């Protein structure tokens, strides 16, 4: 226990020193919904110096999914010949004319825990077309790729996916290329890094001179990650580090990377709040195009608009904090979510609502 306290103390000292040395506010962005939850749950913000600010970035896959994609899913849910297979997180996201939850009464929306369950649904319902709502970052994409390959091998032709899979690094590049950003460093996502390897963030360090540190989800790791970042900022350095050695390697899971590359190619895609980002979304390669839901139903996806009054876009870019949204805690709560950041348990608005946020000196 003492040993842990020592480590926390050491990291805090580094954070304090950096704030003093820089003489201005330091902004560190986390790009992982699970980090967001852990940071709030463990009250990490309140232990940090006043001048060190944590920004919640586009780390929750449900939250970054463009409204146009949601509307496409809802449109397909209305068809009698379709069964929608979705991860639970997507069910309550509001779109044009309701959410999947309100469509659920029609019994054509099924919550699945894995991509394999979605494929099984297709096998069990040969007279329906199963549309798998394939969202998630690099962590989730390999699971989709495996079942697309299996559908192809088993000629399961009543199965298709709507690929909303997104890549984290292009989003970080987009944020840093924007004029208004105020990001000094990134606390990089742990489980995405399990797949892509911490080496994938080298380009952010090299091209933008921003420290990138991969951390796990324990409070100690997060605090040490922040300490490491602060040490680099004090020294005027930008380096790539992982404080999550138990699980993340530099190369990542190469089998998973291979299967992503075999099935998907990166194309330009729309993100909530961030707009169109080059080569940021995974699309099925031509040889698997018969499993591409957009092609199958001949849909051209157009970017959608956020629900009126919802400022999720700005929340996701770290430009505002959830309470700055006029709807926060009023018409928008976890029971009556207006935007995805309040729907998803990993969303910034939901975490903020549940755990509140006060610094010790406020």
């Amino acid at each position, binding site marked *: 226990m003492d040993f842990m306290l020592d480590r926390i103390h050491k990291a805090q000292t580094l954070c304090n020193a950096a704030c003093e040395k820089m003489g201005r506010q330091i902004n560190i962005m986390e790009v992982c*919904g*699970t980090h967001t939850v852990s940071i709030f749950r463990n009250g990490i913000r309140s232990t940090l110096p006043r001048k060190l600010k944590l920004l919640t970035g586009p780390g929750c896959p449900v939250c970054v999914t463009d409204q146009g994609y949601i509307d496409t899913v809802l449109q397909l849910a209305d068809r009698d010949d379709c069964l929608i297979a979705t991860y639970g997180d997507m069910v309550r996201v509001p779109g044009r004319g309701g959410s999947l939850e309100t469509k659920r009464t029609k019994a054509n929306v099924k919550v699945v825990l894995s991509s394999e369950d979605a494929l099984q649904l297709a096998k069990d319902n040969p007279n329906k077309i199963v549309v798998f709502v394939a969202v998630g970052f690099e962590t989730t994409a390999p699971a989709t790729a495996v079942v697309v390959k299996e559908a192809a091998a088993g000629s399961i032709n009543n199965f298709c996916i709507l690929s909303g899979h997104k890549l984290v690094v292009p989003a970080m590049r987009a944020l840093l290329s924007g004029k208004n950003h105020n990001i000094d460093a990134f606390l990089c996502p742990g489980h995405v890094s399990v797949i892509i390897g911490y080496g994938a963030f080298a380009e952010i360090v090299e091209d933008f001179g921003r420290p990138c540190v991969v951390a796990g989800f324990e409070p100690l790791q997060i605090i040490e990650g922040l300490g490491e970042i602060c040490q680099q900022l004090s020294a005027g350095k930008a380096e790539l580090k992982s404080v999550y050695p138990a699980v993340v390697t530099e190369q990542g899971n190469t*089998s998973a990377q291979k299967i992503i590359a075999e099935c998907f190619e990166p194309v330009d895609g729309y993100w909530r709040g961030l707009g169109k980002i080059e080569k940021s979304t995974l699309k099925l390669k031509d040889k698997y195009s018969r499993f591409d839901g957009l092609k199958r139903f001949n849909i051209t996806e157009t970017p959608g608009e956020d629900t009126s009054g919802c400022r999720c876009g700005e929340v996701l870019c770290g430009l505002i904090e959830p309470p700055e949204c006029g709807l926060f805690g009023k018409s928008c709560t976890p029971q009556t979510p207006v935007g995805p950041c309040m729907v998803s348990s990993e969303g910034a608005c939901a975490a903020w609502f549940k755990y509140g946020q006060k610094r010790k000196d406020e």
Partner: protein
Amino acid sequence: MCLAIPARIVELEGDKAVVDAMGNRWKARTTLLAEAKLGDLVLIHAGFAISLVDEEEAKETWQLIAEINDFNQTQNRVSG
């Protein structure tokens, strides 16, 4: 939903496994982690093992998940 859940492989045949986390058992695949063996602790995401994990790490994550699921009882489940 990028959360991966640590679990122990308690049955394994080919790439089809049964895993256990805190007494909960479910099916998972080891397609993406060929080196996974019976008895290993692995991280499971969306039904697939994506990496090996150590005991201490697993315990911490289980605690975090318990908290998130509690939060979700009135809402929805974290997938994967």
